[in-house]
């Protein structure tokens, strides 16, 4: 008996130590379970928030839907995991989510030490400050001595420390883990200043009890290129997620919209034909691990980049954020997609 037991123990121990399961690629596992698990913001208007009946909407949410459409041809095959700033990285590292689309800044340490990969920048942002109008503050340089509300574990928190230090300003950080807590603390007057990415400030201002009592200061103190992130070690998956963004931008470049995409299938322009999978014997989609109709499915589901932007953040939304840096490169912005060929 004890011989059996002993060999069983040693066997189990050795098995556990040596057998590192050869895991399937992310695409295979997503296809196998039948949906995409996407990490989004737990509640930031315009980027990712659930309505009263639990339907998610937002700019990042549409990116998740676009990836789902590229894989399954169906934008509803996606489940959302709401994450706080602190939860988002462990959730992606552990494999709980397949991709992270949560207004997350691309930095070198996130590409290296944290083991992620960013490439597509879906929103060029920068950190700003919001204060009450009644304080009569016109510039961030007048903020010495203020109490500043900030979300923990963000690049915002680090930029804030650096900015105040380099300008020899004093401040008292009031740090919360959840964005809802930061909002309520600022709204109740626990702090004088709210700092986050400027797009976020516009979104937060809408949720305050008296939005018109607050102004956003002109200073932008950092570069915040936001984009979707994936785990390292799966280049195919990385390509799918980043080229989904490039497909959205390319569609806007070509003037393909959700409304006219079916019409565009008949286009004689070889670039558009190739993009929509109408070229003979093409294998762009197959090489990506997807259907040839991948780009068509994306545009059919969510529209092009401009449509996604305007619907969630721009003129079609309450936020009314101007395209600014997020205009197409050909129109003076930074959004530029490599050729799809």
């Amino acid at each position: 008996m004890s011989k059996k037991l002993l060999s069983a123990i040693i066997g189990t121990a050795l098995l556990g130590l040596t057998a590192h399961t050869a895991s399937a690629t992310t695409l295979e596992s997503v296809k196998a379970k039948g949906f995409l698990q996407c990490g989004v913001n737990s509640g930031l208007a315009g980027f990712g928030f659930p309505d009263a009946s639990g339907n998610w909407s937002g700019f990042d949410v549409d990116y998740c839907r676009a990836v789902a459409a590229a894989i399954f041809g169906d934008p509803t095959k996606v489940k959302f995991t709401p994450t706080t700033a602190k939860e988002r990285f462990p959730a992606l590292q552990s494999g709980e989510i397949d991709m992270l689309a949560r207004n997350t800044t691309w930095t070198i340490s996130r590409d290296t030490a944290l083991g992620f990969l960013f490439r597509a920048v879906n929103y060029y942002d920068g950190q700003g400050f919001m204060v009450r109008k009644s304080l009569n503050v016109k510039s961030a340089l007048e903020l010495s001595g203020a109490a500043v509300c900030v979300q923990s574990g963000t690049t915002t928190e680090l930029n804030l420390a650096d900015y105040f230090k380099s300008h020899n300003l004093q401040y008292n950080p009031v740090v919360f883990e959840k964005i809802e807590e930061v909002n309520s603390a600022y709204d109740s007057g626990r702090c004088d200043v709210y700092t986050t990415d400027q797009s976020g400030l516009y979104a937060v201002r809408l949720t305050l009890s008296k939005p018109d009592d607050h102004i956003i200061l002109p200073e932008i103190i950092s570069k915040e290129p936001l984009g979707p992130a994936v785990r390292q070690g799966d280049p195919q998956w990385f390509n799918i997620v980043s080229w989904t963004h490039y497909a959205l931008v390319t569609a806007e470049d070509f003037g393909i919209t959700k409304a006219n995409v079916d019409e565009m299938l008949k286009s004689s322009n070889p670039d558009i034909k190739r993009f929509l999978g109408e070229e003979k014997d093409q294998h762009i989609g197959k090489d990506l691990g997807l259907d040839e109709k991948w780009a068509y499915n994306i545009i059919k589901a969510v529209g092009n980049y401009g449509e996604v932007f305007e619907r969630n953040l721009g003129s079609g939304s309450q936020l009314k954020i101007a395209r600014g840096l997020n205009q197409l490169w050909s129109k003076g912005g930074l959004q530029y997609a490599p050729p799809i060929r």
Partner: protein
Amino acid sequence: MAVNVSEPAGDDRPRSSLLYDPVFRSIIYQVLTAIIFVALIWWFWNNTLENLRRANIASGFGFLNGRAGFDVGQSLIAYTSDSTYLRALYVGFLNTLLVAFTGIVTATIIGFIVGIGRLSHNWLIAKVSQVYVEVFRNIPPLLVIFFWYKGVLAVLPQPRDSIHLPLSVFLNNRGLAFPRPIWGDGAGAIPVAFLVGIVAAILVTKWASARQARTGQPFPSGWTGFGLILGLPILTFLALGSPLSFDYPVAGKFNLSGGSVVGPEFVSLYLALSFYTAAFIAEIVRSGIRSVPKGQTEAAFALGLQSGVTTRKVVVPQALRIIIPPLTSQYLNLTKNSSLAIAIGFSDLVAVGGTILNQSGRAVEIVAIWMAIYLSISLATSLFMNWFNAKMALVER
């Protein structure tokens, strides 16, 4: 199982099988358990490292020496964004200790008052105490914290309309601001006088109990000790010519500047944990006192002891034996519940550690540090309480 008992002693034939020897078997089982345990730990460790390596996630504790880069709202020690992650963790650790220690002291005081109150013959006091216990022990601690933070402290006025209390103390929704003492030359003698007072009080108590054992004469050693501990530092302070000045809080552009400020995050956490845990301590105290048989009190009265002496020398020492072990659990609970600080943004160990986790991406390391520190604090509390329990235990003469 066949045990061979028929073999005569002194037989030099080998026993049928070592496997049937109970001593050998028990050793084998112990060794096997140890091997399984160690192998399991090793496997977890190895697997974690391997997985981190495969996911290209940096690992190791070296990052603790890196620049933190973020600021912390409340700190007991000097800390800037240029300090290291290790220092930031230390700041969080001290904040946790601070709230645990002050919370334990306050919870014990409130708990004893309410617990004794429940036994009061005064109907009103007994009922008020009962309502207190039933209300606080039946609400989750997180809600008690929110009650203090959002219900009580958040409705305080803005800094510009601070409530002005006597002695330059200001109360507003940024916390409680009070004058910060600045000690002058020679002030170092005051804590020395305090220590001397404690030592003298201990000596007086020892001398008094020895004298009482010898002659039967009581001596008010409690009051004498109290006078020594408080009086000596005060005398020293006066003799040095009052070397003390204050930095008063004054209205700044946004907040009060100068003075010391206790933030509403700390205050709500401290009050919530104290009031919550006090409800449990009250029940422990009540059950402890109830457990002392009435005959003990009656016997003490029969011997001619006064009511106060009976309580102090007869009832409380016996009740403490019942009270201390469950009290230890409540102290540990309070310490661990302090991690709920994260909900209201108090920079305790979990909040600061969480920020570091996110900025550096070292999830496994930070979680390991958290567990190690909470375990250490809890074990230290347990050790102290076990020592106290042993001291209070029945000593048979």
